[in-house]
């Protein structure tokens, strides 16, 4: 039974660690399906984390924190859009620049406002998204197998977690069942077709990056005031890149994106669990191996060993009317 308890605890933290990846990867999905590469997911997440922590501390409301996170993240998206859509700049350069801006700006502002070396003060109570105990969780706890899974993995998460999982079918529905989604996917494959159909390519792409900003607002908020209770320097710690890897690993499809994020979250959870423990016959396994696995898996995928990942055809290419 002890091993089962370990498994339950790892699965519980898998869910918790997957959520920021999931929001962020879905953000990337919208942006990249519209042909705008978004390496700036990391920066948007970080900026949103900072904004939500500050707002939640100032107002005492987690929901206002979320709102602030979304607003700042969308602002970053618009800068990315202005550089890469309106001015047809290089999308990678713009994204990387935003990542640097986010790392620097959050620390500078945090130090200026709170003087704690870039941290924000702890928030508590209404300022955080706290775990929700689903009905019957306590009653079911003693049911073998299902009980602990329900009580510790399904129940006991905050509202943002449930929203992340609901966002997956919603993203699928928007992309594949609505006019907006059809046009968004078209603009990432052949913007010329969209333009000649009389639809504005720029406006379509702007809307896509705004959606991306919106979703990154959730992931940043989750980091700062759901998983933690304050903003800490560089607290996104590369999750934006892992989310990007998950997006590629899932070949730019919503449901596989969810599974990729869960897989990468699981690896992270295992890494945490293995810290300082030794495995029989092998000894202590360096946690770095688990931290590197998402990237290794993605490289293996890109090398064509697990099928071919077909990126949106017009991805990364600014749209210029041909003469």
């Amino acid at each position, binding site marked *: 039974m002890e091993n089962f308890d370990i498994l339950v605890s790892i699965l519980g933290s898998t869910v918790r660690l997957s959520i920021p990846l999931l929001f962020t990867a879905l953000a990337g999905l919208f942006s990249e399906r519209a042909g705008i590469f978004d390496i700036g997911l990391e920066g948007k997440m970080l900026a949103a984390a900072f904004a939500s922590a500050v707002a939640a501390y100032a107002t005492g409301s987690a929901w206002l924190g979320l709102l602030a996170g979304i607003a700042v993240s969308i602002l970053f998206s618009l800068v990315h859009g202005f550089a890469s859509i309106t001015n047809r700049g290089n999308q990678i350069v713009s994204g990387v620049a935003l990542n640097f801006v986010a790392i620097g700006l959050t620390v500078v502002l945090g130090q200026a406002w709170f003087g704690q070396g870039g941290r924000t003060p702890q928030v508590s109570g209404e300022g955080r998204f706290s775990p929700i105990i689903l009905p019957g969780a306590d009653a079911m706890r003693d049911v073998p197998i299902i009980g602990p899974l329900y009580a510790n993995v399904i129940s006991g998460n905050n509202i943002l977690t449930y929203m992340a999982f609901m966002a997956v079918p919603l993203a699928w529905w928007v992309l594949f069942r609505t006019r907006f989604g059809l046009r968004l996917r*078209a603009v990432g494959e052949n913007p010329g077709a969209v333009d*000649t159909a009389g639809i504005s390519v720029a406006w379509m792409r702007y809307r896509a990056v705004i959606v991306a900003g919106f979703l990154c607002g959730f992931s940043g908020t989750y980091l700062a005031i759901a998983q933690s209770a304050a903003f800490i320097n560089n607290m996104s710690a590369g999750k934006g890149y892992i989310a990007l890897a998950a997006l590629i690993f899932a070949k730019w499809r919503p449901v596989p994106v969810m599974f990729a994020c869960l897989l990468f979250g699981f690896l992270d959870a295992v890494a945490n669990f293995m810290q300082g423990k030794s495995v029989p016959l092998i000894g202590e396994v360096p946690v770095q191996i688990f931290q590197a696995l998402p990237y290794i898996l993605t490289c293996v995928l890109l090398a064509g060993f697990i099928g071919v990942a077909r990126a949106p055809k017009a991805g990364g290419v600014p749209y210029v009317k041909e003469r």
Partner: protein
Amino acid sequence: MSLDPSPAPAIELVGIDKKFGPVHANKNINLTVARGSIHGIIGENGAGKSTLMSIIYGFYQADQGQIRINGKPIVIRDSQTAISSGIGMVHQHFMLVENFTVLENVVLGVEGGALLGRDAARAREELKRLQKDYGLEVDLDAIVEELPVGAQQRVEILKALYRGADILILDEPTGVLTPAEADHLFNVLRVLREQGKTILLITHKLREIMAITDTVSVMRRGEMVATRATAETTVEELAELMVGRRVLLHVEKGEAKPGPVLLSVKNLTVKDSRGLKMVDNVSFDVRAGEIVGIAGVAGNGQSELLEAIAGIRKPSSGEILIDGQPVAELDAARRRELGLAHIPEDRHHMGLVLKFEEYENSILGYHRDQRYGRGAFLDLEAIRKDAEDKIAKYDIRPPNPRLKTANFSGGNQQKIVVAREIERDPKLLIVGQPTRGVDVGAIEFIHRRIIERRDAGKAVLLVSVELDEIRSLSDRILVMFAGKIVGEKTSEAGEQTLGLMMAGIAA
């Protein structure tokens, strides 16, 4: 109470003028297109045809001038205005989303409501009707990239019709089609005309103009130089109007005097990255003093065959001998040393570096030559001198070796490649699509150079999807279909015979 006896023309252009920086693309263009007619616009590359059509379709705005549709002056600010004025366009490069279905492509931009499901059934009904009325068969649920190009083009036409187009502009519509597909297209166009649609056909192929149009207008260097009733003009007159002087459409050449075998291909098989046989057990010889043409619809293995001979693509089995020497193990540079020269099919991707200046491209691939420098250093003086000689000899315009290659017209770019390869005086010249996207004047020039090679006792292997080109240049014609050579004919063979072989119907 006077009744207008003739309806207003479908399109009237008055004094259309457009400049792109220093380039005067359209100069004071006047054009009247009668309703219910097929009106051809012919001109060389760069004559301004595409710009003019883009202005009608709202891609660009004219600097001056007026557009009247059905007698009403309108300002076409964007494609949306053009569409709502009943103008549809079939672009030269299809504007289709390749991983979408036909239905999705057609409804893109006119989906109806915000949700796709509800209106799809109605769209399907409407499309079925259009397909039946105009003979535009294509599976609505097929993924576009899996369709042959002819079918993709029908999707483009359906798209325009579904948007309620009364005026249909087709830009170089037959460039990618087989003769049979082109005939099918022409039938569709005739049906459209019968139903009262107006068609504007942009092309540089005289044959098409004669075959299908009612009226033809000729453009040259941005100007509309003439409009004729097709029945009252001739190919010769139109060609002369296009280039401003007489051109020889049928290349004069004497009997071939074949000598020893210079290229021998034996049981050659080439696979692509997916492991599919693109060239399937092909054998043939090319002798000194003859031009062997390989006819075929694009994508039947000709490109791969050419690349295998040039040393760019590795065959999976079989032998290639250049002047009797097996070259399987030699790379492209070593094969060139044996006397091979290669004019690649796609000058932009393989023949030239567009960002280079002209003189740099004029030695591309031959930069190790002693004449152009010693050791690691290039002798720029010698290279430029050499480039200037080629420019003079091949009449490359503008005659400036320091100009960026991208700034030359298609025909002149091709001449840069042709000059580079032919001036090496190769024993064996292999040529892919020598005149693709090249204007009539340059076509004639390039054809003459190729025939000169033959007459000088060298071997030429010519790959082209232009049947006319193959027929007028080749001494022997091999037809490729699905990776195999399905037959050999002389240049006397009829177009229809070859067309059937190219379609894999007859051998």
